[in-house]
């Protein structure tokens, strides 16, 4: 096997698997006469996508916009709060236990409240996204800012470094390798948050499109909308992962 063969295997193998899966699906659909309202054939899904490409892409774009805005706001706020924790033990002791608890609660359960408070426009979706992105990033950032080598702190003390210098030169760079795994999780959660917000109450977005087309039993359109937002989520995740490789370059995979 050539070195080049090894290099492209990770791409080729899953691609072949996907083609095989779609082929089996298509064949089974034809042989067993599936009801297309329950499970459309791959060709029907593609046809639905082509026919509705304009609205699918527009609504996907809107949902991705909500997700990215929520992600930026939620992750930014979480990181700033983590820095506040490092500077004030009292603030940390007061708030952190709740943050850890909320990290593993299904926050999306409060989506109806958010729609009630922020309306059925994009604001409630952005808030939902920000909220689900917030907690994992907060918890990991606090770990990364505090899990600093004790000897590095001794060294900084021997230079009589200020807290601000310790923060900028040691704590923040150290936190990045903890932050990025949380950002990757948050990027996926942010999309989930936005879609759930749209399911709960909206007139736009991919969640709304999925809702209405399932109401009209247009299952092929539902599938193509799901495929479209999934692709958006994967690209978002991939973008964050790409950034991680460039920024946290010293971390060996």
């Amino acid at each position: 096997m050539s070195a080049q063969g090894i290099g492209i295997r990770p791409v080729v193998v899953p691609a072949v698997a996907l083609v095989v899966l779609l082929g089996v699906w298509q064949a089974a659909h034809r042989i067993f006469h599936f009801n297309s309202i329950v499970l459309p054939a791959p060709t029907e899904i593609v046809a639905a996508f082509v026919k509705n490409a304009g609205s699918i892409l527009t609504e996907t774009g809107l949902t991705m916009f909500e997700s990215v805005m929520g992600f930026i706001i939620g992750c930014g706020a979480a990181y700033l709060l983590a820095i506040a924790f490092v500077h004030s033990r009292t603030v940390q002791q007061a708030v952190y236990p709740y943050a850890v608890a909320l990290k593993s609660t299904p926050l999306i359960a409060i989506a109806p409240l958010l729609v009630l408070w922020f309306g059925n426009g994009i604001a409630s979706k952005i808030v939902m996204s920000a909220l689900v992105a917030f907690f994992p990033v907060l918890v990991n950032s606090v770990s990364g800012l505090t899990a600093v080598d004790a000897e590095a702190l001794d060294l900084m003390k021997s230079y009589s470094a200020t807290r601000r210098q310790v923060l900028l030169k040691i704590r923040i760079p150290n936190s990045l390798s903890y932050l990025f795994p949380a950002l990757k999780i948050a990027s996926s959660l942010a999309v989930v948050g936005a879609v759930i917000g749209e399911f709960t109450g909206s007139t736009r977005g991919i969640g709304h499109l999925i809702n209405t087309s399932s109401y009209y039993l247009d299952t092929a359109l539902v599938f193509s909308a799901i495929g479209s937002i999934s692709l958006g989520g994967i690209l978002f995740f991939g973008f964050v992962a790409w950034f991680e490789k460039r920024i946290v370059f010293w971390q060996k995979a």
Partner: protein
Amino acid sequence: MTAHEQIVEAVNLSKTYPDGKVQALKDISFSVAKGEFISIIGPSGCGKSTLIKILGDITEPSMGTVRVNGLNARQARLKGMFSFVFQNPVLLPWRRVIENVSLPLEILHNGTRDPNSLLRVFGLEGFENAYPAQLSGGMKQRVALARALTFNPKILLMDEPFGAVDELNRAALDLDLARIWQEIGVTVFFVTHSISEAVFLADRVFVLSARPARLKTVLNISFPRPRNKELQETEPFQEVVRCLRKELE
């Protein structure tokens, strides 16, 4: 030059850690002349690191005082008089070699040495732009040494600095350290587990007792300088090492 000008004066240093109620140091007093090289040996866990950290004002003593050039330890630290080298090189992995060596200069604004020429002194030319992950253990420790000297400290506090380095590299690092110490006249406290390394480098060896550490013995080492590694094979050297080993038992 006033050969007997005292730079460090420790009086009745005691340390009890509050949490474990462990007494680490008991009544340690000594004074050290400017430019002296002091090796510190003692049973493992006796309080050597604690002593080094108290001297450099990283940890406070429970009792007793440290005075440096007439200042208390805190004032001396604020003036950038102390510099540490630990067993781990403690390099920042996101900084290049040259940026690691310059770190103290971003914080302290003392009289400085040129980081590039320090890297040359330690045989690291060509590695200025490498990242720590690209260096061997011995090279990392050389970077840590260069970093410790950039801001022209008066007192170098070394806690088993070559303890994790292989034997060949360790011998080379000992020679480099001895050479540079003579060149720049810094005062050194050097903790080590190796008796022969302690003797090879020191003007005086401080032997600490088991915990709580007291200053049990102070031994003058008068082999002429510059010393080379053949010295370690000679009978007088071995005699001193045997004598210290007995002290430690």
